[in-house]
């Protein structure tokens, strides 16, 4: 823990140095023309932990497309008056805090949890605060083959202080699967009386092992915020194409016949060169012998 602190101090000090250094040559401009957008969002994740996300972005009053994220601002997250944690905004203006599953929240009499995100304010920026009230909902995702029909079953319920489960009355639900770049929506439906059933398509390839990650998502619900539940299952029809491209024109190694023909041609030609060279040496040898003989004759 100590080393972690140490690390963070280094990072922070570097950040500060860094901010100062670019202040020197950056054109100074303040945020007076910008209206600050400060939003809090909560997402209950598949492991029942909760992600709190505050986005802090300045929007030009005249040109609405001109948006500048606030970088490195300290955001404090509260449950009522209890501090949950502090996070800094990224270069996209987003601060995130993950609250573990075992966190016990204080709720109001209707069972709502109150979340607050706060920016303390500085010389140039006003104090910002946003809050949301959500009920703690439990989303369960079950993937079953019922009479060999691949079925997605979703149940949603709340648990009151006495531990009694109450099915959710109604909420919009999205079923999607994961893609490499983004999730693909398979079905948009409604949970009624805490249940939703969906027949899973039979021709989704999934990944190389045929595994598919299935998500059930409740988005921007007034009472529950965002919830996401996920489960992986081997329902994919992916066929591993083990057929590797052999020797082709465009692979690294050429088709075998090309090597054979090239070798035959080269060996043929070079054999002839060698043959010529050998004969030249023979001629030379004979010439030397003649020269030697002539010399001997002269000597005699």
């Amino acid at each position, binding site marked *: 823990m100590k080393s972690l602190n140490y690390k963070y101090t280094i990072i922070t000090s*570097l950040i500060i140095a*860094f901010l100062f250094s670019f202040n020197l040559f950056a054109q100074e401009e303040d945020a007076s023309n910008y209206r600050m957008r400060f939003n809090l969002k909560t997402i209950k994740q598949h492991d029942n932990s909760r992600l709190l996300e505050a986005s802090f972005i300045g929007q030009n009053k005249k040109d609405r497309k001109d948006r500048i994220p606030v970088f490195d601002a300290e955001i404090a997250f509260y449950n009522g008056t209890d501090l949950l944690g502090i996070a800094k905004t990224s270069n996209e203006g987003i601060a995130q805090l993950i609250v573990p599953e075992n966190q016990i929240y204080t709720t109001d009499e209707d069972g709502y949890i109150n979340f607050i995100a706060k920016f303390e304010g500085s010389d140039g920026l006003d104090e910002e605060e946003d809050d949301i009230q959500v009920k703690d909902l439990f989303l369960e995702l079950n993937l079953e083959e019922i009479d060999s029909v691949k079925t997605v079953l979703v149940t949603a319920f709340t648990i009151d202080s006495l531990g009694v489960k109450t099915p959710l009355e109604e909420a919009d639900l999205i079923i999607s699967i994961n893609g490499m770049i983004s999730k693909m929506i398979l079905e948009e439906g409604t949970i009624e009386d805490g249940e939703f059933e969906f027949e899973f398509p039979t021709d989704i390839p999934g990944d190389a092992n045929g595994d598919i990650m299935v998500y059930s998502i409740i988005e921007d619900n007034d009472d529950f915020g965002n919830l996401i539940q996920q489960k992986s299952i081997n329902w994919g029809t992916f066929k591993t194409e083990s057929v590797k491209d052999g020797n*082709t024109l465009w692979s690294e190694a050429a088709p075998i016949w090309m090597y054979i023909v090239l070798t035959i041609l080269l060996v043929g030609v070079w054999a002839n060169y060698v043959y010529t060279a050998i004969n030249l040496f023979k001629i030379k040898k004979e010439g030397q012998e003649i020269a030697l003989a002539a010399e001997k004759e002269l000597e005699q």
Partner: protein
Amino acid sequence: MENNKNDKKSTNRRNFLKLGLLSSVTAVAGASLISNLAVQDEEVAESGEKMRLLTPDGKIVEVDATNVNQYPEALVTPEESREGIPNRKFVMVIDLAKCKNARKCVEGCQKAHKLDYNEEFMKVQLIQDNPEASPYWLPKPCFHCDEPPCVTVCPTGATFKREDNIVLVDNDRCIGCKFCITSCPYSARQFNWGHKEKFDDKSQPYSPETSVPAAEGTVMKCDFCPDMLRQGKLPHCATSCPMGVIYFGDKNEDIVTNGEETVRFSELIKDRGGYRHLEHLGTKPNVYYLPAVNRQFPLERGFDVEEDIIERYKDVPFVQDLKKQGKI
């Protein structure tokens, strides 16, 4: 001790990125990590690319993008880049009905690959199939063919076909014979004719996956942005297009996305009559086009660009007609 730990962490992440296993969720969570690490880096040279940020003090500052956005963390060396991302077969689908020559794909690509104003990996052509047909805008990246003639003719293996369908150029290996340029029937390749200052900027180590920095006397082309794909993000042209013209994805998982909607690749091609350009050449491209039917914009909207860009289409008969009528 501390440093070691850090290194380990970043190499782990690096390997992670190389494997292309990063799901979109982790990628978002990782964004802040990248920025933190970037700040720690002491030797960051300027890329010239600026990014505007607000400080907590309410000051607007322009910072060099390399300081907050660092590529090389996931640097893939030329040798490593010869292996594709496992089990992927990348495809692009371009919806011609939505294209209005806004040229954002061109600009986004130029920015990401540090190309000059006049250098385009992505070109937008004005095609008229026959005299009666209505012309349409055709964004033309590299088609990343399955049987690429450019790779066949390369004498040194500087350009290569990966298992994930991507055709890349390794400009460390390229000798600049230009044979690949002449053998590409789609004119997708460019050559670096002279020296430019940007080639000397070594702040970002060279990787064929980013095509940056380019090198004099070598060939370059559209690379499908594998560096983005490894992070689970779309190529730059697809993210910059305001119309969602460009869909990109993995044919193996049969999913393509343009950033807004995510659809089944096979269904898109089936329902919208997808085709490949100049199919008869037998190169088997991996870029598909959806025909320009039920268009969302009139063609003339595409001339809402700068004068010198319009000049680039002056040889098209249709443009000559428009000019005669005084419409441009």
